[in-house]
């Protein structure tokens, strides 16, 4: 819940709002609670805070002046796109300015010859592909929230999607980011060429969770839309066999456009919801997509069928047409809204593990279900080893939230223990900041802080996110994960 500001806070609020009103129109500076309330959280609703002031600039010059003003006043600034993030990266500062880039919705330029699009950060991910479609092009990274999430947020989080094993993450598909440092100094990383002189600061800005700079213009690569795509749906009577089948596909020299896995509790939940035609008797199903020239697709589908049969698939179906392909995917994309139907609350994890440890980690999650008395269906990006186990719970049930927290903490611990990571694509934000203490040692955390200081010596941009202080790590020696339910429950996810 948001909290009322003390008197000193109200004076500060008035001073900051006034300073911003000197160059922003009235509608672009929000400070009354009824106006700022919608900004109290992002996609991770367990964490809420009323921003002191919300600023809604429309021009780069306004962004620069907001940053300069806040810098001069020593006021923290938190950038925000659509607010669909899942780690609390856009959680507002109670004593600062929430900088919404929602009005930066312009597609500046699509160059179909050089295959690039120059867009503002508030442009939705899918809107880029829509703008490129008349030229037979598209923007490859496709987080499942792509109808709502913005490219600025994608850059901040280095978002992935279901096609990133073959087509890469945001970092592989962004050529240039222009923006401003915390003190309002203009910055320009990358180029429309394939590289730029000096250190690769473009790589550093992508995934930096809004802590190093505020992006105001992003240049992305566009790819030709594959003329053909088909998906194989395979059933397995055993989770381990399905995991081994994933390795077998890779071992056969195939990089599928998408390679996703769902276990039986997940397929049963979504089948009831969307009727995708899933095999409800299977312990797990795999979706394996091939795309490219028709000749390539036929060749790859034949190989995939052979490999999966040898790996013990009990049923194989290949999509016959585009409608059927989309229907097979519809269940996977609707997995999260479907969970919302069978459980009052659910908590999503984002660990990534080496694929060979899949069976072991799934077995571990099964044990945790028994230990905590909570169900945990699994959907995941099998090709990348990126797991999204979903713990189902009822927040109204006393103790369920705490059990969920402990369950999740044990699973993330397991991910790190098998050589993986606490977050594959959702970011650290505020949610997994304590887990960072398990992933990194003090020396690395110190270096992260030094990198932050190089860009933002006063520590005003998105303070307290992504990188814990050493003192915090000392305090949180024990792993601790907070639960959070998702808003926009109908939005396809992950």
């Amino acid at each position, binding site marked *: 819940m948001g909290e009322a500001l003390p008197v000193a806070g109200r004076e500060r609020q008035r001073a900051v709002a006034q300073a911003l009103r000197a160059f922003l129109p009235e509608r672009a500076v929000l400070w009354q609670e009824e106006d700022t309330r919608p900004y109290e959280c992002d996609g991770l609703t367990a964490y809420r805070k009323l921003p002191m002031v919300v600023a809604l600039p429309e021009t780069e010059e306004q962004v620069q002046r907001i940053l300069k003003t806040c810098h001069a006043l020593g006021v923290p600034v938190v950038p925000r796109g659509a607010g669909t993030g899942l780690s609390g990266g856009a959680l507002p500062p109670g004593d600062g300015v929430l900088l919404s880039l929602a009005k930066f919705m312009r597609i500046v330029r699509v160059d179909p010859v050089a295959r690039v699009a120059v867009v503002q950060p508030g442009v939705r991910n899918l809107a880029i592909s829509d703008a490129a479609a008349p030229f037979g092009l598209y923007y490859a990274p496709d987080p499942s929230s792509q109808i709502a999430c913005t490219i600025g947020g994608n850059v901040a989080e280095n978002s992935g999607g279901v096609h990133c094993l073959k087509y890469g993450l945001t*970092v592989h598909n962004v050529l240039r980011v222009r923006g401003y440092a915390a003190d309002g100094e203009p910055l*320009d990383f990358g180029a429309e*060429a*394939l590289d730029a002189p*000096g250190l690769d600061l473009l790589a550093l800005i992508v995934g930096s969770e809004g802590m190093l700079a505020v992006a105001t213009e992003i240049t992305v690569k566009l790819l030709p839309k594959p003329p053909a795509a088909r998906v194989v749906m395979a059933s397995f009577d055993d989770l381990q066999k399905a995991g081994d089948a994933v390795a077998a596909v890779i071992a056969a020299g195939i990089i599928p456009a998408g390679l996703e896995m769902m276990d039986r509790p997940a397929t049963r939940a979504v089948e009831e919801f969307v009727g995708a035609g899933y095999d409800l008797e299977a312990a797990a199903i795999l979706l394996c997509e091939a795309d490219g020239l028709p000749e390539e697709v036929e060749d790859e589908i034949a190989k995939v069928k052979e490999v999966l049969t040898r790996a013990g698939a009990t049923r194989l179906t290949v999509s016959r047409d585009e409608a059927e392909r989309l229907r097979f995917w519809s269940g996977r994309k609707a997995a999260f809204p479907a969970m919302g139907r069978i459980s009052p609350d659910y908590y999503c994890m984002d660990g990534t593990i080496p694929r060979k440890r899949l069976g072991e980690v799934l077995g571990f999650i099964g044990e945790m279900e028994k230990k905590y008395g909570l169900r945990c269906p699994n959907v995941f990006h099998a090709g990348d080893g990126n797991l999204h186990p979903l713990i189902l719970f009822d927040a109204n049930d006393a103790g369920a939230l705490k059990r969920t927290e402990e369950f999740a903490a044990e699973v993330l611990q397991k991910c790190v223990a098998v050589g993986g990571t606490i977050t594959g694509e959702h970011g650290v934000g505020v949610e997994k900041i304590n887990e960072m203490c398990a992933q990194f040692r003090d020396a690395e955390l110190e270096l992260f802080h*030094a990198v932050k200081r190089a860009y933002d010596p006063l520590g005003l941009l998105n303070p307290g996110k992504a990188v814990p202080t050493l003192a915090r790590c000392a305090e949180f020696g024990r792993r601790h994960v907070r639960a959070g339910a998702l808003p926009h429950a109908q939005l396809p996810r992950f």
Partner: protein
Amino acid sequence: MSADLRERIRAAAGRGTALRLRGGGSKDFYGGAPRGEVLDTRAHAGIVDYEPTELVVTARCGTPLAELEAALAAQGQMLAFEPPHFGGGATLGGCVAAGLSGPRRAAAGALRDFVLGARLIDGRARELAFGGRVMKNVAGYDVSRLLAGSLGTLGLILEVSLKVLPRPAAERTLRLELPQAKAIEQLNRWAGTALPVSASAWRDGELHLRLSGAEAAVRAAGQTLGGQTLAADAANRFWTGVRDHSDTFFAGDAPLWRLSLPSSAPPLELPGEPLIEWGGALRWLRTQAAAATMREAAARAGGHATLFRGGDKAAGVFAPLAPALARLHRELKAAFDPAGVVNPGRLYPDF
């Protein structure tokens, strides 16, 4: 072994003397003139972990690139960015530090795109680990990718984890006759289609195109594009020549300029005939033209120019940075190497 390397760096930092990090020395020519006492990385060698079905290889910096590539080839895999070797002896550490990619870059991605994790000894002799051995990892700033192309100025890259890919089932190289402007136009047009072009090189009115992928797709694309098909060994020789600069274009002492441009930039009005790679995005020139001339031409076209080999390095090897970026470079250098011990001057004179 890494303890010895740390000790050397700690001692140098204590004395405030420069260290020149060096593997096989195959890229001694590249960047600002090396200075300081040589710290040879070659003893810290070997593949640490390679599981083909994970698509990840982890190896120590001194591992010969040829040895690493042979281990991948034995499993039908490759470094998809096709790194240059520039003669014998190239090591993985130098490869990542230089950050250079070969003919497949425009289609498959650059070296930095394949970096998943790294261990580093920074200029304060701290051993640090970033990223990991998994495909997706967004915990912390992406320092391991920042090391790609850092020319050892942030520290000694001890160990690297790279994403690897399967070798294509089929490859075919075609030779077509096209004037420069037409070749650039066609390359951009083809790149906007699903044609499986994995490399391109234009020179003297001749365009070489390499197609990679499923046999049927390569055959079909070959028929669409026409031209002459090269025999497999001639094709391999050709692409190795372009990759390692053993092609005749790169012979002799004339300064070699590397221009990185938007792929669709029209032919530059500069003296000399270029060799054009990466679908138009990389243009090599042999010229005595002044650095300022080259840099202005590249900047006008939306890119940058590097004095890649030879010539007078006094005018700077790499394009100068805008003041804001130059400041960030200095601040980052101070974060990693406050005493300026590792590879000073290799990237920028004050760095």
